[in-house]
């Protein structure tokens, strides 16, 4: 059983937290990952910052800009993962765009993921049609490519889910990442479609910031993914952010556990 499978097997409903690596520094990122795990985060998504993150709202865009300005690079993030793996077995999933992987060399990138202990990768601008750009390189290195399913996916849901690895990332709303007051999409109906073909769990992300939303989304799926709300705390508190992030993640992770009951 790999680390992602183990997380879902152990917790049933998993809280997944996202932060941008290198925001405000890689040292703080390391502390944040360990803190989030302690607070109940079952999987940590680490953003490799990109100059032009077209799927991100303004909060994560700003985090990417800060991280890049601080000198964060893909190689330094791999070093961070290697460091983290000495202290934790929490599943780590990268979120980045096609270009940083393609330019690094997909084979070299996924080999490095395997070597340092990265469990999965989410690539928003690699849709089902272009999956061959990554899968021939990710599979031999046992790195899961986590696909996204959107409210507009309709007839595409089953084929995407059928080849999903790790988990299926269910996008709750149209648009980019960011906090939303209301999520109006019928997630239950989408989850039902996903489960017809998926061999892996599914978790809902985009727009979730309150414990109520997290509990509700985890109740209809296998987990809740929260990014912008955590990144906002990092933005506000910088180096002091771990203790604030702990409190927030604890509350959110507890709400997700509630959904498992």
């Amino acid at each position, binding site marked *: 059983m790999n680390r992602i499978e183990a997380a879902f097997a152990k917790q049933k409903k998993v809280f997944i937290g996202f932060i941008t690596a290198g925001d405000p520094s890689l040292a703080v990122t390391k502390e944040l990952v360990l803190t989030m795990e302690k607070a109940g985060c079952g999987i940590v998504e680490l953003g490799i910052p990109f100059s032009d993150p077209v799927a991100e709202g303004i909060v994560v865009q700003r985090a990417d800009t800060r991280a890049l300005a601080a000198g964060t690079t893909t190689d330094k993030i791999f070093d961070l993962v290697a460091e983290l793996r000495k202290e934790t077995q929490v599943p780590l999933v990268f979120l980045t765009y096609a*270009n940083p992987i*393609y330019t690094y060399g997909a084979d070299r990138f996924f080999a490095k993921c395997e070597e340092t202990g990265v469990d999965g990768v989410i690539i928003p601008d690699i*849709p089902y049609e*272009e999956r061959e750009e990554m899968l021939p390189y990710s599979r031999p290195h046992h790195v899961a490519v986590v*696909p996204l399913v*959107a409210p507009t996916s309709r007839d595409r849901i089953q084929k995407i889910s059928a080849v999903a690895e790790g988990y299926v990332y269910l996008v709750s709303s149209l*648009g980019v990442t960011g906090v939303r007051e209301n999520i109006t999409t019928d997630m239950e109906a989408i989850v039902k479609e996903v489960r017809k073909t998926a061999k892996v769990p599914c978790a809902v992300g985009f727009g979730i910031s309150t414990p109520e939303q997290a509990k509700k989304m985890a109740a209809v799926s296998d987990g809740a993914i929260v990014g912008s709300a955590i990144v906002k705390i990092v933005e506000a508190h910088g180096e002091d952010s771990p203790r604030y992030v702990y409190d927030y993640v604890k509350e959110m992770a507890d709400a997700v556990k509630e959904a498992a009951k």
Partner: protein
Amino acid sequence: MTKGRYGIHGGQYLPETLMNAVLELEEAYEHYRNDPDFLAELHRLYREYANRPSLLYYAKKMTEDLGGCKIYLKREDLNHTGAHKINNVLGQILLAKKMGKKRVIAETGAGQHGVATATGAALMNMECVVYMGSEDCERQKLNVFRMQLLGATVVPVESGTGTLKDAVNEALRVWTARCEDTFYVLGSCMGPHPYPAMVRDFQKIIGEEIRAQLQEKEGRLPDYVLACVGGGSNAIGAFYDFIKEPEVKLIGVEAAGLGVDDPKNAATISNGSLGIFHGMKSYFLQDEYGQIAPVYSISAGLDYPGIGPEHAYLHDIGRVQYVPATDAEAVEAFNYLSKTEGIIPAVESAHAVAHAMKLAPTLPKDKIMVINLSGRGDKDVAAIARYMGVDLHE
């Protein structure tokens, strides 16, 4: 290999949320591209609204002054709205109408594509929102106001470098939020399939007209066709009909800003490397980690870190030669054409003129060169004045 490929370039690298929107667009485009009624309506708009065919003008004074080959100018600057951009916009807006869309969005660099889209939207009764980098809004204030006069909303994009690529990023983000009722009118032969093919098809009339007009005037094909290249829509439009004629040399001129060896340039073929960005695989200006470079050119329309995938392929197979021209060379050409022929070119098109000024004197008098004059320079007068140190208030 997936759809929409030019060699290894092209593809559909988009967030899942947008995939059904581009597939729907692809289906509609496949349906209408050869539909006689659609084409008849488009060509009626070209003729009666956009002022096509644009003139092919023999630049006699320039020819004599440079003392080499015979030079013709394809006068896309005389189109309605002042640039080739209207050709593509009329095609896409007509398609949007057929698809039942009532709202269009667009990105713009110099503002020419934004003005063309705002114009088409006014004509077809559609709501129009244009995304424009904040830096470009500043450089092209007149075009911002022009779009507003046409009834469009212009949204300045502050993120990144505040230029064309950031405007594309924002248009993609906004499209993700409203893909179900909004048609994205992309301004160049770039982005995910079907845009590069669709934009080329709506622009290829430029080359088709050059062929027919030169046949009438000279009874033969041109020896050289020159065009400036940012994303590459005016160039692909001018080149496409000649790709199958190996004796016609095709030259794309990129914006080299302060020089190809200076970090401040936008010369993608000279300095770029393979990447995946804005929905396509192509060449991009980027660092070793795939971070897109902040590019620079005096021309807001060429200030883009990538190039359309078909150009990338035409470069790979050696069918088109891509060369750089600097800000200084473009400004010199801008002044030269204004004084020599009484034609003020867009600073984008001035890049093509700049290369022609180097090449023409080296060619024999019996050779024929066509420069695609993609737009007019009224919008650039203030920026050129600033460049030349003239204190001018609009």
